[in-house]
């Protein structure tokens, strides 16, 4: 599963790249590279005090957002948790405004009110990243409910981690989604850990697809979350089905978080719950490297072109940092703005 299906002449079959055109394939690579290059310098600016609060990295999981989000259509909605940089970038939110939010500046996507955990892009249907584990699951069901109520053919994607699966409200919400048959795409990004607690240590049933399909009468499946094309193929098929039926679906993407849970969960801390060997094992299946090999082997692109793309992503991020760092902080008056719509 990790490697592309190849012919005996080591040329990937058309099936391996799923018949996607060159522009689409390169776009997917661009998104994954941008997410990674965006997050890599964050530690430096966090240590320098330019960012604060909690920051949660998506590095290692890029194939999931990249496999799913570009398939959204106008009117589709998305809601998620605090590990949210990748989703905004995959959606096409301006990296400058995302970085400015991390820097707490007025030009940020939430005017500096939210920070890393609370990105938002209403224009693109992104209803926000929120900080309570599992807390967004009913919100996503509610947004999907609104789509059904209004007779729309759109879907709401609700993206969360394996830790969420143990919150009581998730049971309540999935039950209602299955009961009312609302077009909510539940995406479980199973990165193996709820903060520092491994899945087998927090879940009596580690087969989440089994639990959801049996428990809530919702169709579901699992996909290799390190393989962007596999994620895309599954999502493509699922979304077509959902737009037809209007019913919910549960997609588990098995992936891995290279970094700690958050900034404070450093290498020293991680020794309490996982090994270097385990991290290395997953790094060998790196979604970007894997996709790079696939594209090169199929002759879709060249080393030089990919390197240029990488440099371009680094330049976008450098510009974003420059923009963020030179942007003004929110005005003191804004403290009291938007507590209410009218007071």
């Amino acid at each position: 599963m990790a490697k592309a299906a190849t012919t005996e002449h080591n040329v990937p079959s058309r099936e391996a790249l799923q018949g996607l055109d060159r522009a689409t394939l390169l776009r997917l690579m661009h998104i994954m590279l941008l997410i990674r290059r965006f997050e890599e310098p964050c530690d430096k600016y966090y240590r320098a005090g330019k960012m604060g609060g909690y920051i949660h990295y998506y590095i290692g999981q890029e194939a999931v957002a990249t496999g799913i989000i570009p398939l959204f259509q106008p009117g589709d909605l998305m809601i998620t948790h605090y590990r949210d940089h990748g989703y905004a970038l995959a959606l096409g939110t301006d990296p400058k405004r995302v970085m400015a939010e991390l820097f707490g500046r007025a030009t940020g996507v939430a005017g500096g009110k939210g920070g890393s955990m609370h990105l938002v892009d209403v224009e693109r249907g992104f209803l926000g990243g929120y900080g309570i584990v599992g807390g967004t699951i009913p919100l996503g069901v509610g947004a999907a409910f609104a789509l059904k109520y209004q007779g729309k053919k759109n879907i709401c994607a609700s993206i969360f981690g394996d830790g969420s699966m143990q919150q009581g409200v998730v049971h309540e919400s999935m039950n209602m989604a299955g009961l009312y048959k609302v077009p909510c795409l539940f995406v479980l990004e199973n990165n193996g850990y709820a903060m520092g607690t491994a899945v087998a240590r927090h879940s009596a049933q580690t087969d989440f697809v089994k639990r959801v399909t049996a428990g809530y009468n919702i169709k579901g499946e699992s996909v290799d979350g390190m393989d962007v094309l596999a994620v895309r193929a599954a999502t493509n098929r699922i979304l077509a089905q959902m737009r037809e039926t209007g019913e919910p679906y549960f997609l588990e993407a098995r992936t891995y978080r290279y970094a700690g849970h958050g900034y404070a969960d450093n290498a020293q801390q991680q020794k309490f719950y996982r090994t270097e060997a385990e991290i290395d094992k997953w790094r060998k299946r790196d979604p970007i490297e894997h996709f790079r090999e696939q594209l090169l082997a199929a002759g879709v692109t060249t080393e030089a072109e990919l390197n240029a793309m990488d440099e371009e992503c680094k330049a976008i991020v450098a510009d974003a940092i420059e923009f963020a760092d030179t942007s003004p902080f929110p005005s003191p008056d804004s403290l009291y703005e938007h507590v209410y719509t009218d007071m």
Partner: protein
Amino acid sequence: MATMRYAEALRLAMTEEMERDPNVFLCGEEVAQYQGTFRVTEGMADRFKDENHGLRVLDTPISEAGIAGLVTGAAMAGLRPIAEFMTWSFAILALDQIVNHAAKILYMTNGQIKVPVVFRGPAGTGNQLSAQHSQSLEAWYAHVPGLKVVLPSTPADAKGLLKTAIRDDNPVIFMEHAGLYSQRGEVPEDPNFTVPFGVAAVRREGKDVSLISYSHAVGVCLSAAEKLWQEAGLSCEVIDLRTLLPLDMDTVLRSVQKTHRAVVVQEEWKNVGFVSELASRIYEGAFDDLDAPIERVGGPFVPMPYSKPLERAAIPGEEDVISAVKRAVA
């Protein structure tokens, strides 16, 4: 004007607003087929059954957090939901959704996503419902920026304030009182009738003492005021706050500046209660006008007991208000 019960006034408000705006829907436990635990929603499911895939009046599982989250998400996506809690005591299960999500999303998104949702249902004490069903927790919500908190005391206000709540673009905590559901009163039938938030009502004018209250306790204050007038010749002004958030301090301070004495009254635990906040605000705004310390009337610091005489002792009544007024004028 028509005479109707408080519960009927609430139903009329919801029905009118649902007829006015197709984005308004109602959901909750037993609101549809069962016709509402307190019959507040009687007939509504049938009235709207053919609209929006039958989702306009919707029975839910017993999942308070799920319900509160579902309506919050639906509001974020453009609807104007009304969620009924069977009692506000059960809404404790939904606090994360109300306090950490609904209340804060407008601010967290810098004004980009509004949450026009009404959370409503019966609150308050009485009927021997004992510890887990009989309590007044409005102060919890009045503590949270982003929420509006409304407690109607009359059938007319039940209708007018609920219509304002449904039209409001912010999350509204709408606490009815189970002890008022059968109370009758004159209610305007005009579908354009609303009662604005943040405007207290002077229910009885007076010159000696200001009694400031809301919800069911307003009636307690009114009967105490009548007795004090009849028996002691004391003239009490009774103010019904109607909404705690926004809070109409102008009306309160104007009254206290006239009477120079204030008694604040509610059923809730006095300890860290809303009346404590109210007393502080009066001290801040009218200290020099006061001729006596402010008296606080509230419940004793105990979970609500079941047995009738114990329950009676745990809910502030007319006698407690009368004693407080007498202390204030002593």
